[in-house]
């Protein structure tokens, strides 16, 4: 065998097998879960604020509880946590 053939057999084939196993293990999750959060990873997304659909939140008087930018209040209590 020439040097090239030896390299192909003893390096190329094992590397190919390792690559196949890697793709079989992580391939599908690489494609399907690009946004998956893992603790400790940086969070690069823009801040976003989710509020319930206005039709779902109606006062007894029929008024919406949140009017954009028109209200103000102060925080009273709550809790916090770290992970």
């Amino acid at each position, binding site marked *: 065998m020439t040097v090239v053939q030896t390299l192909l057999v003893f390096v190329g084939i094992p590397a190919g097998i390792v690559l196949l196993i890697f793709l079989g293990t992580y391939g599908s999750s690489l494609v399907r879960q690009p946004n998956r959060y893992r603790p400790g990873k940086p969070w690069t997304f*823009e*801040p976003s604020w989710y509020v*319930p659909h206005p039709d779902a*939140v109606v006062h007894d008087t029929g008024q919406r509880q949140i009017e954009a930018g028109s209200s103000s209040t102060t*925080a009273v209590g709550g809790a*916090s946590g770290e992970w």
Partner: protein
Amino acid sequence: MSGDVTKTAKPAELQFGPQGSAQQDGPFTATQLARLDEALTLSSRETGLTFSVYVGELKPPARAHAEALFEKLTDDSVLLAVSPGQRVSHIVTGPGSSTRLPNRSCALAALAMRAAFANGDLVGGIVTGLRMLADSAGGTR
């Protein structure tokens, strides 16, 4: 379905309605957004309180930032502020909502959320927190 959940790109301006293509670039998939929407809408409708969820960076001191965000809401609001990058979460209640939700209930919800977040389940943690808070607040009086 996911169009029902309202997302504001800039937290400074609280707006209604989907913000263009912003939802596609967001951190959550359509299924996750639907779960979030359902939990938000159901817990708000059930309790009469306005729940809202903020996901993003909280400038230190994080608690003060969360409370500043809360000041844009109403007395009957409950804010769940989650910062995955800093690994902190804050629940903020106001003059109206704190009578229904004592700090003890909020701490319990925060603990349950923490457990899910530590496993990397952001939406699961938020949904669990919303459900627990809605349960302890009880129905509309």
